[in-house]
């Protein structure tokens, strides 16, 4: 019997796992996908919110502000990409100024550091490409951007290195209360645990409702995005929001930590948590609405588009608590935006709740430091030359667009909780994430995955399951003769 089973290997589950690995607990994270970071955590705005727009006094506001503070030290401890680039909320009409001021006051109430209202002149001086229609803005220097994959993977790897077990391709079907805990029946047998942490994102209501009479309801709220080529990297330096108003919640324009520009998201409620397709209308809306903030946004430079589902709980509030009618079952549910920002704080809160229940000893061997995959581009020429001499695979470029070497890809596959698929390699190294979208590198990456994991090419997948890349040998190929 485990002490703790965490359902979901997204940011919430992985952060909770890492925080709990500070204690002497027997922990297992289970996920229905083949890898960490496969749901909401992989398809979002990649923003570290300042917390201005959270309602004061809510758990959301508390977690957001705390998560924002924790992000910088955590990014250093776990070696993932984070940048405090600051954010702007644009106001386009005189009649909306009172609303902007209310929002500013809310930011003050939430104790967001150093926020101020910028005049049109100050705004345009800060961001020359902003629309002339923007008449003022709130500037929040504490806003930031993060690599959501990097953060999620780093937390999970560190949890793993501190003894947390991960089981992938494992889907929970039912949860039953048993003596001294719970029994989870899955497609891979049943799992018993004293305590459950429900970090299942868009499925969190399903698991909550299996054990509790007090039902909750989560709506998958689709957000569609377009990612622009790195040549657009200098378009804006801050994350640009639009003041929520008659145009709806607004579309953001932001640089990413890797130098692309990201625009989106739409907000479209539906009822299929698995539906992450984009729509023609959605993408058109994103491109059109982004030009309201930044008229010169070069929508012809789109290199990919994607959508993700926010786990929108009916009351629009995080639920992080032990269920009153299901002891030792801890929800981390309704984690929609600002969930990514809040993840470090949510992990701590979940760990506090679980520790209150299980009263564990500290783990004396806990090591909170993790080294990411070496990015040779960040080395000096001397260091880079030395690295290639030691490991020649770092001299072999596989992904041209993002200049990712074979050395990085091998590291991504062979390290703790390593990549097993093309998307797994992509999220860890960026191979295939550039402007040709894996056109050149996918055959080579497939070969490396096959070699390192001892798989036939027919077994290589894009992202697990039945997403095989090739279906057989070509007719004249020697393998079939």
């Amino acid at each position, binding site marked *: 019997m485990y002490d703790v089973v965490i359902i979901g290997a997204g940011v919430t589950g992985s952060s909770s796992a890492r925080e709990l690995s500070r204690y002497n607990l027997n922990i297992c994270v289970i996920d229905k996908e083949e890898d960490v970071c496969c749901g909401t955590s992989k398809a979002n705005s990649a923003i570290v919110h300042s917390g201005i727009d959270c309602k004061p006094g809510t758990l959301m506001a508390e977690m957001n502000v705390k998560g924002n503070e924790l992000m910088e030290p955590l990014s250093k401890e776990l070696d993932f990409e984070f940048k405090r680039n600051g954010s702007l909320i644009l106001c386009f009409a005189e009649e909306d100024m009172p609303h902007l001021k209310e929002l500013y006051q809310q930011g003050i109430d939430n104790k967001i550091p150093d926020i101020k209202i910028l005049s049109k002149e100050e705004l345009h001086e800060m961001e020359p490409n902003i629309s002339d229609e923007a008449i003022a803005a709130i500037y929040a220097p504490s806003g930031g951007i993060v690599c959501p994959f990097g953060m999620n993977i780093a937390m999970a790897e560190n949890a793993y290195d501190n003894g947390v077990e991960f089981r992938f391709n494992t889907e929970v079907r039912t949860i039953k209360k048993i003596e001294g805990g719970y029994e989870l029946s899955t497609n891979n047998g049943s799992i018993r645990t004293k305590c459950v942490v429900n970090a299942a994102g868009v499925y969190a209501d399903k698991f909550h409702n299996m054990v509790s009479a007090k039902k909750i309801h989560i709506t998958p709220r689709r957000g569609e995005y377009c990612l622009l080529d790195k040549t657009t990297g200098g378009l804006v330096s801050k994350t640009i929001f639009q003041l929520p108003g008659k145009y709806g919640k607004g579309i953001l324009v932001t640089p990413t930590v890797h130098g692309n520009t990201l625009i989106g998201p739409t907000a479209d409620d539906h009822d299929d948590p698995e539906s992450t397709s984009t729509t023609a209308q959605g993408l058109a809306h994103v491109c059109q609405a982004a030009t309201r903030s930044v008229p010169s946004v070069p929508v012809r430079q789109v290199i990919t588009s994607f959508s993700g589902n926010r786990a929108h709980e009916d009351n629009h509030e995080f639920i992080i608590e032990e269920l009153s009618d299901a002891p030792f079952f801890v929800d981390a549910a309704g984690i929609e935006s600002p969930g990514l920002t809040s993840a470090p704080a949510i992990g701590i809160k979940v760990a506090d709740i679980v520790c209150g229940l299980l009263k564990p000893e500290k783990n004396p061997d806990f090591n909170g430091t993790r080294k990411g995959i070496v990015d040779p581009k960040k080395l000096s020429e001397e260091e*880079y030359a030395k690295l290639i001499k030691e490991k020649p695979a770092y*001299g072999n470029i596989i992904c041209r667009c993002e*200049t990712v070497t074979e050395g990085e890809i091998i590291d991504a596959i062979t390290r703790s909780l390593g990549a097993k698929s093309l998307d797994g390699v992509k999220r860890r190294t960026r191979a295939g994430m550039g*402007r040709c979208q894996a*056109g050149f590198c996918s*055959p080579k990456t497939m070969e490396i995955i096959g070699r390192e994991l001892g798989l036939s090419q027919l077994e290589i997948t894009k992202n697990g399951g039945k997403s095989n890349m*090739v*279906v057989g040998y*070509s*007719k004249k190929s020697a393998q079939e003769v």
Partner: protein
Amino acid sequence: MSSYDIVIIGGGPAGLAAAASAKRNGIDSILILERDSQLGGILNQCIHNGFGLHTFKEELTGPEYAKRFIDQVEELKIEYKLNTMVMDIAGDKTITAMNRTDGLFKIQAKAIVLAMGCRERSRGALNIPGFRPAGVYSAGTAQRLVNIEGYMPGREVVILGSGDIGLIMARRMTLEGAKVKVVAELMPFSGGLKRNIVQCLDDFGIPLKLSHTVVDIRGKERLEGITLAEVDNHGKPIPGTEEDYTCDTLLLSCGLIPENELSRGIGVDMNAITSGPSVNESLETSIDGVFACGNVLHVHDLVDFVSEEAAAAGKNAAKYVQNNCTMGEAGKEIPIIATDGVRYTVPKTIHVNRMEDELVVRFRVGAVYKNSYITTYLNDKQIIHRKRPIMAPGEMEEIKLKKSELEAFGGLENITVKIEEA
């Protein structure tokens, strides 16, 4: 730091021809840098025939065509490095490159020939909505998997885009036992060569649907199907024309983009229409001693023309080196104006005193023209008025300018190339 007179970036058809030509024109110190494990570039995966009709008067396969040039490079004892990625080219022509054995290293060049080729437009760039399953490939990636790696990407295929690689792959996949259901093309005309439509689609009974595009992609893990729709004159899908296809593979052949990351890095002026560098009569970019040729300059249909263009670039690079790193007296730079259906020209400008006796100017038209005229004007004086029964964006056109005629024309300010309809 090692140094060479001419460094050629890319060992595909353009780089090979440029190197051989530079050597024959008297330069010994030449280095080709190639990122793949063999010379020949994309030709190595083009195992169909039809290459070399112009150059060798015979039909060769891609690898055979490449071999002719690789043999020349070997015979001429031209140095090359394989598996070598050029990371950066500085304005002073210092090249930073990398491979497994030499590590990270720098080379000083007197002249550089850019010959990096092109890449395919991706699904993302087309912004096709839907899911993102496995089974959506660019046609060239699928070609590599089938012809080089020996794998079948799928069994039931829809192809979007009627570029030449897509047409060739329609035939290849069919010959390999797959069912190619349809080739859809957004434009009201094909983007590929007429001969490929006949030999790759018509001969196999594969339908070509013009003015159609993919409006949805289904399948969470592996592709399960797509939806095609007819488009209006503005390329917008017409509601009610949607048609579902089950398929496990979608191949995209929707255009090629010159690979000019290095060119931008070095700072050469770019042509927004071709996405390649702007060049003059010597195929020289805006930076002295940096030349460009082949698909990195503008996307070609026929490799024969790539070889021809690259030979000129190699010759000019040799001339530059022999002439103490200058192309000689510049004289006046005459712009070539591309208008009225002519999308661009290569070259874009001409120094009359530096041009060869006869200069080939290549261009593409923006639409299909029937029984129209290619015309050329020196200032306002028409010098070429040539009837063409059919011209299409998928087929490159050319005119030839004579140095003697341009020299004899007093007060030349500009040259205009345009299409005049009958």
